[in-house]
């Protein structure tokens, strides 16, 4: 069951992701390691939107 509060969904036990295999977990770790690039793209986009780029 998802818990809600003002401002959005907050964590519940269902929020935690379970991986069935080591390969799935490895792919997730790889994804995490690439998150910074995703974040940098988002930062650049926000700076352009705000005219700060």
């Amino acid at each position, binding site marked *: 069951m998802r818990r809600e509060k003002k401002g959005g969904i907050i964590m519940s036990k269902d929020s*935690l992701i379970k991986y069935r295999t080591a390969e799935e977990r490895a792919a997730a770790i790889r994804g995490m390691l690439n998150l910074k690039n995703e974040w940098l793209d988002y930062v650049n986009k926000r700076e352009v939107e705000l005219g700060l780029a």
Partner: protein
Amino acid sequence: MRLSVDKINQASPYWVVQLDDMLFRFRTENDVTYRIGFYKDSYLAREGVYHFFISNTNDTFAPHDPKVFSVISLVLEEFFSQEEPVMLYICDPRDHRESIRSRLYERWFNSYSKRDDLTLHTANIDFDGYIVYTGMILRKDHPLYNEVIASFDEFVKDAPSSIPLEPK
């Protein structure tokens, strides 16, 4: 979750500009611009977990400036003053600065005045011949404290070192 730049700027040695709910920017006296913030995780949990990132102009080494650490500390403190915050970090070993990052988080944690309210839980993953430093910081009063820690431990255990870091 929206962090308060006003609270940060009450004590920050540099003026911090808010770009989004959890994203900030500031420029130092050495004319280095930093972006700092939190980004929602989608690998450990669907809600409630955030990765902490910081980058400077061109993402390079900058002159040592203790005021930068002060700004980072204030942003982290503002994050951990929220309800149920969970911060995750994973240090990319591919640019060989992973141990520096890992030490930064530990240094902040050890210097934080309210660290007794928090847990720093770390793990090193042997992944494709690299050591990947990871860690999680959460409040001890998090309602799912045990579950989050267990989930993190499950996530980092037995990472297959034979699987390449870069998919072929």
